[in-house]
């Protein structure tokens, strides 16, 4: 299964993401999830970025929060809402929001 997972929180209170093991996983960072792409707490990038997945961060939600695309971790591709639609229709069979 090709699964796109929307992550919308910075502090994760569930471990659902750890239990998912699709053939292909895309993690789309939206809303407060975009902090995973930019913040380095005590110099360490988010542990979320260590997962085996393709990472995307929504440009609109980054800039809403005053975050600059140039500060996004190199593992993460900055995308627009239009790109999210393309990913859902072209690259992934199912989506989940956690």
């Amino acid at each position, binding site marked *: 299964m090709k699964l796109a997972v929307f992550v919308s929180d910075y502090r994760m209170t569930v471990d659902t993401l750890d239990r998912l093991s699709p053939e292909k996983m895309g993690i789309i960072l939206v*809303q407060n999830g975009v902090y995973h792409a930019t913040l380095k707490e005590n110099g360490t990038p988010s542990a979320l970025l260590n997962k085996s997945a393709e990472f995307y961060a929504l440009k609109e939600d980054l800039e809403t929060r005053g975050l600059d695309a140039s500060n996004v971790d190199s593992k993460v591709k900055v995308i627009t809402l239009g790109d999210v639609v393309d990913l859902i229709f072209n690259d992934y069979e199912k989506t989940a929001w956690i």
Partner: protein
Amino acid sequence: MATTKLGFIVQRPPYKSENPKLALTHAIATQSVEVYLNEGDTVTADIAFIGDGVLNCKKDQKAMDYYGLTSTEQHIKMALLVDINIWVCKEDVEKFGLSEDDLVLDAEEFGADMTVNVVPYSEISKKMEEMNHLLFF
């Protein structure tokens, strides 16, 4: 005659929930509460951003451009304009790899005299002890 001191403590990041903005709007609203008080009584409000709450203070927020929302940055500037004390935890700012240059520190364009104070948590803790009521958002 008495002064009631309210301390609004913001510990959540912006936008995902209404909490941080509610803290700001409630604090700003204290400016107009005097009509409901006895003569001579006053209410003051201070706001402190701690933990993930310091992310509210990131400057260059473009919420209006993308979502038609007044940004939390604008709310902070409005709070400065009505002379509300704003404290930001220095340790938490640094923990996220941010510096004062990354934060909204004043509202000069609106003519506000107040500025945001980036201070150690120990100073915020002292301020909290001075408050009559603490409200956590």
